[in-house]
């Protein structure tokens, strides 16, 4: 029997829908910070079994061409990435969610594998003032000497758990990507939008899945 309470027009929407809006935020002029939503990523958590990560590591290497980092870092291929998420734990990222479930079959049974694509919200933060804005709430030292390209960290910003990593540098310097639990996206944006306002911020809410993960 059809559930009369279920609307027929339900459609999936990005984690930042209704939170981020395209446009300029804060003081006018050249933006000091640029923020882009990273919607459409495939995300899965991988946790090695108690017997060790050897089989999981080999399978990820064979299927995705990625080395699972053993320290807080991210490894990239053209289409996928693996981010350290604690000892024996990783997040597997796919640039495009299409076909991700099928690809995950390569690691099913080799550890605890959980699809998280709709459970996380990811942002890219760049611009000449990105580090200065993050410094208002992030307790990590993000200076290039302490936090090089490819480094990752789990930390807390404004009492919200944040998974943070530094992507390839862009034309304006360091590029950070930040992931929060989707249910915290609104609260996190409340902090971030306040932190970036004084520098002026360009917001791209509808980037799609074209950038790097």
């Amino acid at each position: 029997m059809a559930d009369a309470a279920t609307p027929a027009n339900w459609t999936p929407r990005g984690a930042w829908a209704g939170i981020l809006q395209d446009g300029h935020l804060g003081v006018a002029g050249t933006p000091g910070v640029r923020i882009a939503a990273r919607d459409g990523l495939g995300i899965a958590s991988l946790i090695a079994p108690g017997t060790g990560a050897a089989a999981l590591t080999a399978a990820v290497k064979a299927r995705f061409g990625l080395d699972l980092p053993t320290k807080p870092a991210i490894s990239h291929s053209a289409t996928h990435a693996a981010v350290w998420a604690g000892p024996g734990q990783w997040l597997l990222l796919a640039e495009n969610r299409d076909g991700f479930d099928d690809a995950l079959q390569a690691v099913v049974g080799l550890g605890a594998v959980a699809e998280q694509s709709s459970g996380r919200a990811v942002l890219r933060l760049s611009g000449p003032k990105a580090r200065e804005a993050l410094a208002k709430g992030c307790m990590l030292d993000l200076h290039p000497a302490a936090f090089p390209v490819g480094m990752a960290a789990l930390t807390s910003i404004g009492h919200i758990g944040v998974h943070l990593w530094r992507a390839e540098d862009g034309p304006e310097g360091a590029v950070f990507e930040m992931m929060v639990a989707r249910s915290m996206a609104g609260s996190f944006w409340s902090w971030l939008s306040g932190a970036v306002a004084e520098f002026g911020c360009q917001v791209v809410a509808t980037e799609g899945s074209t950038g790097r993960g």
Partner: protein
Amino acid sequence: MRITCPHCGARDAQEFSYLGDANPKRPDGLDATEAAMHDYVYQRDNPAGRHRELWYHGAGCHAWLVVTRDTRSHAIEAVEVASTVRSGAAA
């Protein structure tokens, strides 16, 4: 105070939760006397000086750590992953 997590590096103490003395070992349940269980549950030393204590890196890698700290100066002598020292903990 900053704690150098063996996994994550030096982090502010507010990323961690304190869970007390790392030394007490739970007596074997069925064989334990009431007095031994009482001591395990309630009796704690409160040293002025070197103290081995449990911390949980809740905002980071979720690892349990054994931190050896001087309670007078907060100087941290060692941070170990609890799962690797569990078997070797002092009674």
